[in-house]
């Protein structure tokens, strides 16, 4: 067994931890740091359920060696709500009922968060493309699209009064 000590920031908190070189970041997050919001789906980078932001870019943690996280800044779904208040993206997913079983939701939320923070304006087609690395087995994607569109629409256009009706 080959161990390596790595230091990284997880949801703004710096930690140092010894990882096995054979471990994926996904397994370290779930099994050692108990961040079970990071879901283990396909393990081959196809379903997107294990998506987190590494230095603010979306990655599948199942095909990312844990040792590569050394020196990086990682954000998972656990760190998105601040002082009990959901993030804008989380709130949109709630408002639009973009959740059924919830397994894919953390991944979708993290990718949508990356888009939101890029400051870019996304068309419906672009949102679809940006979320195409995620699979959902039960919502039919419709509400997920509504939630992402709602989270990504410019704040001054509709404000908080929209309740998702404006893009129907």
């Amino acid at each position, binding site marked *: 067994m*080959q161990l390596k000590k790595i230091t990284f920031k997880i949801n703004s908190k710096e930690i140092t931890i010894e990882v096995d070189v*054979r471990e*994926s970041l996904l397994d370290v997050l779930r099994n050692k740091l108990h961040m079970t919001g990071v879901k283990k789906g396909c393990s081959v980078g*196809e379903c997107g359920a294990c*998506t987190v932001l590494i230095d603010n870019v979306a*990655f599948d943690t199942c095909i990312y060696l844990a040792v590569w996280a050394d020196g990086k800044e990682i954000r998972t779904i656990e760190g998105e709500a601040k002082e009990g208040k959901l993030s804008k993206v989380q709130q949109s997913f709630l408002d639009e009922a973009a959740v059924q079983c919830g397994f894919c939701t953390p991944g979708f939320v993290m990718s949508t968060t990356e888009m939101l923070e890029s400051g870019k304006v996304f068309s419906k087609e672009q949102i679809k493309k940006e979320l195409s690395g995620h699979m959902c087995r039960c919502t039919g994607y419709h509400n997920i699209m509504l939630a992402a569109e709602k989270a990504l629409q410019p704040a001054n256009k509709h404000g908080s009064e929209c309740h998702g009706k404006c893009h129907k």
Partner: protein
Amino acid sequence: MYDIIAYEEASCIEEAIKLLVANPNATLISGGSDVLIKLHEGRMHDAHLISIHGIKELSGVSMLEDGTIVIGSGTSFSKISKHPIVQQFIPVLGEAVDMVGGPQIRNIGTIGGNICNGVTSADSASTLFAFNARLEIQGPDGVRTVLIKEFYKGPGKVDLQHEEILTAIFITPDNYRGYGGHYIKYAMRNAMDIATLGCVALCKVKGIHQIEDFRLALGVAAPVPMRCTETERLIKGEFFTEELIEKVGKTALKEVNPRTSWRASKDFRLQLVEELSKRAFRQAFKNAGGEQ
């Protein structure tokens, strides 16, 4: 846990080469989107990995004084498609690599890995064939360069010794200046799929009606990515007409040698070769400033 028996991390190219020399059975890992999946699926065992994941000098896009574009082999697909140099001078390469997998795969997968796997379906490869890209390879004896068309030796086989590393991809100005291009990937679905056929056309226009230069490259139309040199020869110098478009499709058909796989039959691929060559040519001509 992955079936890894040893893991070493190189901090620079020289160190990576030294590690490769010292470990004849080691495998290089860059982005990991192919190697880790192979390990997961049991197609690779007891891996001794040498990671070049964090080597900064392998990542990035830049331009030399003479206009040559240099792409580091460790540059991720998303960094390539978002790079201003790519967007301004070789947008078709950005479009091609923007069709690999899904966004998270494009954030981790590298262009070097895409080429070194030696597969004919690599989205970046056909476009690099059209650009006559030159590959820089570093080994214990120094640096050598090889044209991409000579790099591919057969399915999964490339001109790379165990101790060597593909470090950079060069595209010289005479191979991109004045060209308009278009890449079409045909797959069963838009995302997370491997090309059933990939087709890229580059066009340079004389005046607005005449083809000064034409290049047509295909992926999955033969065991390795290929150029349709006979078609290119026939089209060069001609005036753009509907008949000429038909000619591109018909002549390209005679040059390819696709196979039947579980993804698609040979017949279907032949149909794709004809149709996509025509469509790519038409759009590339337009993108180069041509008018019908």
